């Protein structure tokens, strides 16, 4: 195949298809990288999906990948393009975390996820836009401005991994890393018609991820197919001694079991997921998806998550508490933004942080400071950790009778930019269906399952700890029967 002929279609191909093409010699990594960099140059700015595009580094990495292939040293992802959420540290490349605080920060080292993907041969094209310090559900808290939803530029792509989701949805790149603390991979995947996988807590190393809420944060991926998510997870997962909460648990081959049919799979349906609050069309699409799983031999079983309503308030104590602690490292002294002409050390701290952090980050730091402060710790933080135990127990009880829990990823399709910025609680409630998996440390995936008007809707599958294979297989089987994940926004064909 000549480059000219393949150029038209390379951006529409999945990682698995591109891997086949590279191995067959249909095109080179350099040709593929050039084609996608051209697309990023053409569309990246209008979408505001990128904070940094690393074109020169990408070309060099692509050349190295081609050389490795001709030397017989091709890694499992050799020559495949990816992008990283700008929360993963990348040696020698700006790592801003969407914040003015880190606008001048060039990481001295690579995150484990970044290093592992590079060692497998993946070519990084750049760093994607995100809500500041991953605190947001719409990408509107970014210091670099909101990302646009490729399905309609008036709408939010969700957040906080909104740049990664928009880049994949617009076919600028076939796969992207993201992080998920309360839904930050799955919710933007749902709102952009992409696949978003959040693994089990501890499955993927957090080393080199700028910390937000350490007991909830987990790295994952946004792709177009579940099979591609399985491919990337296989490379990213595994024990890392540099992350004290990394789990030493064997990494299976996530791709190999995908073809196993759904016969006998027990799918839990949560009654509370379909209560008021779920937009009607979203509910209809999810019900259709469930019916399809049942047709394929899965059995639908009703399960109860009685404390679901408490998951958002629990999260908004635990996450801000951990964030106030983690973000105390930004002091204007060792790295990051520093206020000019401070009167004294206290003024240096307070003004550097006041200027460096945006409104939402400041709100969360203060909420966290309050719930951890003398006299309030027991009433808020300790209480929330107890309710978190109840929520976790609800999932354990449910998984005694089912293999996965299926339901909506988000209560609504994408919302308009600016629609929810004045009301933090309305924004927070967007994560009602996703937060539980973070509180309990469970793996979850969002898969496109149709449209509400012209905007994508996501189906969420949550599994027990380390059941990534089950949710990936269920998602993959669903995708062999549907083509929602192949739909592409008209402007990005």
């Amino acid at each position: 195949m000549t480059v000219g002929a393949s150029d038209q279609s390379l951006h529409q191909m999945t990682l698995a298809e591109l891997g086949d093409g590279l191995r067959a010699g249909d095109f080179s990594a350099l040709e593929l990288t050039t084609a996608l960099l051209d697309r990023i140059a053409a569309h990246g700015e209008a979408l505001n999906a990128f904070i940094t595009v690393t074109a020169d580094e990408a070309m060099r990495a692509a050349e190295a990948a081609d050389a490795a292939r001709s030397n017989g040293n091709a890694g499992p992802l050799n020559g495949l393009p990816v992008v990283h959420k700008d929360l993963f540290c990348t040696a020698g490349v700006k790592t801003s975390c969407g914040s003015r605080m880190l606008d001048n920060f060039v990481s001295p080292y690579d995150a484990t996820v970044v290093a592992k993907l590079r060692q497998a041969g993946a070519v990084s094209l750049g760093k994607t836009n995100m809500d500041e310090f991953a605190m947001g559900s719409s990408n509107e808290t970014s210091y670099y401005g909101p990302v646009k939803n490729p399905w309609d530029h008036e709408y939010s792509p969700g957040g906080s991994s909104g740049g990664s989701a928009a880049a994949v949805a617009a076919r600028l790149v076939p796969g992207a890393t993201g992080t998920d603390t309360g839904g930050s991979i799955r919710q933007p995947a749902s709102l952009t018609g992409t696949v978003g996988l959040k693994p089990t807590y501890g499955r993927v190393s957090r080393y080199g991820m700028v910390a937000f809420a350490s007991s909830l944060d987990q790295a994952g991926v946004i792709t177009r197919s579940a099979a591609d998510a399985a491919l990337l997870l296989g490379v990213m997962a595994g024990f890392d001694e540099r992350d004290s909460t990394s789990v030493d648990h064997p990494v299976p081959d996530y791709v190999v079991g995908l073809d196993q049919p759904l016969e006998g799979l027990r799918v839990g349906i949560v009654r509370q997921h379909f209560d008021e609050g779920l937009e009607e069309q979203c509910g209809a699409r999810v019900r259709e998806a469930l019916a399809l799983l049942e047709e394929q031999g899965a059995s639908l079983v009703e399960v109860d998550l009685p404390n679901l309503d408490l998951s958002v308030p629990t999260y908004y104590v635990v996450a801000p508490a951990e964030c106030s602690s983690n973000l105390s490292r930004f002091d204007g002294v060792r790295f990051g933004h520093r206020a000019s002409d401070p009167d004294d050390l206290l003024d240096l701290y307070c003004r550097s942080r006041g200027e460096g952090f945006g409104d939402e980050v400041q709100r969360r730091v203060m909420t966290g400071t309050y719930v951890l402060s003398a006299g309030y710790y027991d009433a808020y933080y300790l209480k929330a950790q107890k309710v978190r135990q109840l929520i976790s127990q609800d999932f354990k009880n449910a998984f005694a009778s089912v293999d996965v829990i299926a339901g909506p990823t988000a209560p609504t399709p994408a919302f308009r930019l600016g629609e929810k910025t004045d009301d933090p609680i309305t924004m927070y409630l967007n994560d009602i269906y996703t937060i539980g998996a973070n509180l309990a440390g469970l793996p979850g995936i969002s898969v496109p399952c149709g449209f509400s008007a012209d905007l994508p809707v996501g189906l969420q599958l949550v599994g027990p700890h380390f059941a990534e294979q089950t949710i990936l297989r269920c998602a993959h089987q669903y995708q062999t029967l549907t083509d929602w994940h192949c739909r592409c926004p008209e402007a990005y064909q």
Partner: protein
Amino acid sequence: MSLTKEQVQHIAILARLKLADEQFDDVVAKLSTIVEFVDQLQSAPTDDVVPMAHPLDQAQRLRDDTVTASNERDRLQQNAPAVEAGYYLVPRVIE
């Protein structure tokens, strides 16, 4: 429970945040909304519930106390706003 202006001023000092005067009322209002929202937790029955410390009930892993990294001070200080002779510069703290 809504928060008073004095409480928010105290929290801001604890959090080492200088709030702009024009944003102050908005911060008080929004933080109050958030605190009222999380107050729903108070009604949850949690007697005898053990607070959750880790999603996988893992204990903190320890490692041997051995030197594993080399001194990279110069490289790491490239991100520092102000350094001199290997030290971070801050405003005078001792008169």
